């Protein structure tokens, strides 16, 4: 119907028009929500239509405009980005259904602003996924930060605004303060920023400057939430749960680890980087983040903050996998982006459902809630199992690949970290799940409730099923991702 | 002798500093403007001094004047005529503003004006 370049462009245009449509339809909530859903479906169909071509080895390109001499806003779809875009656009449909239930069930204010910013954020995610060079990626990275700010600050009270300030400050600060100079430095070294299989920096920079550049990227890409710049993610939890679910479990954070993976694979080049001792720095940073965030998560009682710290740890799995720089682990990195997305969005959906139904946010008050909300808590359990990495869920598959990569490299630090964090994950998820199902209700709800509104339950059941589905049908995805290793 | 021959320039420097001091030290607007005028006047002197050529006469070519007559350089004089016009305009505008300030505040002392603005 459309050529491949047109399809890429449409992936940006559809959500953009959708945002306008939402803004115009603001006065009629039903029309507005129809616009959102239509946009989501159109976007997903559009993005997914690229899959066969990419799977067959095609690399659709689009050259938009030359922004700076020799540097264009350009797009090139490769397996990693294809996966990210397909994931984000697909889950957006589910999330939109869920949003409607959540926002109406909760009687939120300013819903039009909320629904207007959402497509813009998705547009930015698509731009990041399809970007053909680092400049384009950076542009949409910043668009994503700014378009999600109103979503985080949605509630508008003092505490929320303070949190939103942390969110904005850290994300803009790291990207402008570190990522931008790293990028300009790369450009002045290599004369290009195109994502090139095999990298563009080989032979152009040596230790110890390479270590500096590497750290500027690793920390500058704040959306990957490596410690010590992880604080924006817990801060972002003041947002309505649909935002936390899609953006702060999928689109925004995955954009971060996606960027890191892209930089390793296509800017540094994994073979070149592997030969440099300083790539160990990132491994250490990631291991540190995984363990420490798990310990912090153990101490959280607010459910969403607990999930946030879990996310920080899981993101570092991806960074760890990417920085092991072995073929299996690179595939594992992309697999884990997907596996974690299914699991974590389910967990957030469940947390939001509990909030809408019972207004509870603290896990110490949720004993026995599984009896009132069996579907929700069952889905939560599935997500938790996936986080821990047990079969038959998605988390098991990706962890398998990452472990494989670590063994290829004889990286005992990574192995030990993975084992310890698995135990810690189990330690903070399982007691809560048991308590929810087996204990007696300890805090009676303000008013009697059962499950949350049906759109929410439907959404979270679907994502829980996807977590199983990924376990069973991951092979095509692994094959697709293996293509990124070809030069 | 050589130093004495440069006395114009010393006067220029002294006037410049006097003017600057007046501007900075006085809180009275009119006095500051007087300082500003002195400051600009110093520059006129600089330009006029540089056009002087030893033994030179006024730069007007008269019929019958010997071919080897030395003339002073007319260009700086022309320049400074322009600069004087500019200086006058600036002073006039400054004084006009001073009048308006007096109408609006009832004083032309800067510290008093500052006091009144702070109260606002």
């Amino acid at each position, binding site marked *: 119907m459309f050529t491949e370049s047109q399809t890429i462009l449409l992936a940006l245009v559809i959500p953009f028009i959708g945002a306008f449509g939402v803004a115009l339809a603001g006065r009629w909530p039903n029309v507005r929500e129809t616009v959102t859903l239509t946009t989501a479906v159109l976007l997903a169909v559009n993005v997914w239509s690229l899959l066969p071509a990419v799977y067959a080895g095609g690399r659709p390109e689009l050259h938009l405009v030359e922004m700076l001499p020799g540097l264009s806003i350009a797009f090139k779809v490769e397996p990693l980005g294809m996966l990210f875009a397909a994931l984000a656009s697909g889950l957006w449909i589910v999330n939109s259904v869920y949003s409607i239930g959540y926002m109406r069930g909760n009687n939120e204010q300013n819903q039009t602003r909320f629904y207007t910013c959402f497509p813009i954020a998705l547009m930015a995610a698509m731009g990041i996924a399809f970007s053909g060079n680092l400049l384009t990626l950076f542009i949409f990275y*910043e668009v994503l930060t700014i378009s999600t700010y109103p979503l985080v*600050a949605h509630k508008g009270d003092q505490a929320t605004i303070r949190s939103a300030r942390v969110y904005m400050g850290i994300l803009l600060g790291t990207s*402008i303060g570190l990522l931008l100079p790293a990028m300009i430095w790369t450009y002045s070294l290599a004369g290009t920023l195109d994502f090139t299989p095999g990298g563009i920096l080989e032979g152009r920079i040596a230790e110890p400057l390479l270590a500096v550049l590497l750290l500027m990227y690793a920390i500058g890409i704040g959306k990957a939430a490596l410690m010590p710049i992880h604080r924006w993610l817990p801060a972002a939890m003041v947002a309505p749960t649909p935002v936390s679910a899609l953006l702060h479990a999928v689109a925004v954070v995955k954009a971060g680890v996606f960027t890191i993976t892209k930089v390793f694979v296509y800017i540094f080049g994994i073979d070149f980087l592997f030969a440099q001792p300083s790539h160990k720095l990132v491994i250490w940073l990631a291991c540190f983040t995984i363990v420490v965030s798990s310990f912090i998560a153990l101490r959280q009682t607010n459910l969403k903050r607990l999930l946030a710290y879990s996310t920080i740890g899981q993101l570092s799995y991806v960074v760890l996998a990417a920085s092991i720089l072995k073929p299996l682990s690179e595939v594992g990195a992309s697999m884990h982006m997907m596996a974690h997305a299914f699991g974590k969005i389910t967990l957030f959906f469940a947390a939001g459902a509990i909030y809408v139904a019972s207004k509870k946010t603290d896990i110490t008050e949720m004993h026995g809630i599984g009896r009132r909300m069996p579907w929700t808590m069952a889905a939560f359990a599935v997500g938790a199992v996936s986080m821990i990495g047990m079969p038959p869920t998605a988390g098991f598959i990706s962890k398998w690949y990452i472990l494989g990569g670590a063994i290829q490299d004889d990286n005992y630090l990574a192995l030990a970290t993975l084992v310890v964090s698995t135990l810690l994950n189990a330690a903070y998820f399982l007691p809560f799940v048991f308590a929810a199902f087996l204990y007696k209700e300890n805090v009676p709800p303000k008013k009697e409730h059962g499950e949350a509104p049906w759109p929410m339950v439907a959404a979270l059941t679907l994502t829980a099923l996807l977590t199983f589905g990924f376990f069973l049908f991951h092979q095509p995805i692994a094959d697709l991702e293996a293509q990124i290793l070809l030069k | 002798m050589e130093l004495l021959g440069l006395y114009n320039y010393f006067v220029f420097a002294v006037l410049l500093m006097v003017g600057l001091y007046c501007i900075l030290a006085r809180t009275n607007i009119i006095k500051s403007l007087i300082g500003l005028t002195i*400051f600009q006047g110093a520059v006129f002197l600089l330009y006029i001094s540089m056009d002087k050529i030893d033994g030179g006469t006024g730069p007007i070519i008269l019929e019958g004047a010997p071919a080897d007559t030395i003339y002073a350089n007319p260009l700086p004089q022309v320049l400074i005529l322009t600069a004087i016009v500019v200086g006058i305009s*600036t002073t006039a505008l400054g004084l006009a503003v001073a009048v308006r300030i007096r109408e609006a505040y009832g004083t032309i002392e*800067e510290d008093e004006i500052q006091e009144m603005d702070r109260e606002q």
Partner: protein
Amino acid sequence: MTLHDQLPALLVVVPLVTAPIAYLLRAHGLPWAAAVAANVTAFIIACALAATVYGGETIIYEMGGWPAPYGIVLHIDALSALMAMLVTGASAAALIFGAKSLADEVGEEIAPSFFAAWILCTAGLTGMVITGDAFNIFVFMEISSLSTYILVSAGPDRRALVATYRYIVMGTIGATLYLIGVGFLYMATGSLNTVDIAARIGDVTEVRLLLVAAGFITVGLALKAAIFPLHSWMPNAYTFAPNVVTVFIAAASAKVSLYVLIRIDYAIFYKNIPNHELQLALLLVPMGILALFAGSMLAIYEKNLKRLLAYSSVAQVGYIALGISMASVSGLTAAIVHMFNHGLIKGGMFMAVACLALRYRSVNIANLAGAGRAMPWTMAAFVIGGLGLIGVPLTPGFISKWYLVLGALEKGGLGAVLVAAILLSSLLAVIYVWKVVEVAYFKEPRANAVPVEREAPLVMLIPTWIVVLAGLWIAIDSSMPVTMATLGAETLLGAR
């Protein structure tokens, strides 16, 4: 001679002639119309000239047919054409935008003299930009300054008068210092034509004289350009001038002094004073870095929106100073591009402020609570401008910052310090921009405040958005200013 050959002269002559006409027009609205006509014509002429020199040519126009170095020549290359476009464009846009706002603030009885002064200001600024004569620059500088003083003093608050008075004193000192420097240059070389001076200056053996000349000229222009710590006249002048006047002078007038600084320093002194690169860096790097931080910090603690933007301008001028100090093609390109881009950004932002002031009758940030909902288009324009100050991609500020960092990276170790300073101050910009955003979007208006329900009138919104969209266009396709700035930088550094 065709009309096209006369365009350089017309660029200055059209406004110069229109000014007295505007003063004589006593009917309602006519002086404004005359000013718009003159400025739009000048803008079109500037664009035509820019198109002519876009390939790298230089137009030399001899006034009255007197050849250089005896007569005054107009000297138009890519750099001056770019600046001429900025000046006339800013002026025309501000005037078209400002009809309603000016009627509100300035009033009918002084309109003829006000608009006459405005037109003269354009004439002076364009004259400074295109003339090739160092003394002529002084004359045009004073024409523009005197008329700017008048424009500022027309502000509705009586504090405008005191601000004007300070501006007069500081401006005159700056111009006089410049004049002294030119005098010394004339003593050394016997010429006033910049090209001619540059050609003769190599024979001057007395380097000290040149150094003194360079010192006076640089400091004098730095004062007029409000480079920190010589900026003291600027915040109050911007704050108390009529809102539309602020649009104009913030976008264009300080930039022109920076332009003259670049032109004189690089065309004349750069190659002829030993170690001049180092001297320039020693002066401008500390000033620039201080400007970045002091300006941003002052902006962060400021409660008045206009003064906040003025302090932000202090910081932004710091970027330009840093770019100038780098003495490299990318550094100068960054400085020139940022002059243009910052003009677009700040012009647009002050337009938004004028819209806000029209409805809220106040520019105190605290009083603007709820503006995000009441005036969504105005606030959106403001936010886009603010993002430009931060240097977020897809805004013109990003383009400037890109070249600035690229230029700094060429400098090695010192460059790393510069990069750190530049980026840190961008982050400070986040704070002061977001301070306004939070109030406008997330604060509820005070209970006793008069509620504002209406957007600004379309006659103001449309020009504002044209400026904003022009900025966004430059951000996406930066070829126009970048090409011209690179040409200018290469010419100045003798790389072409």
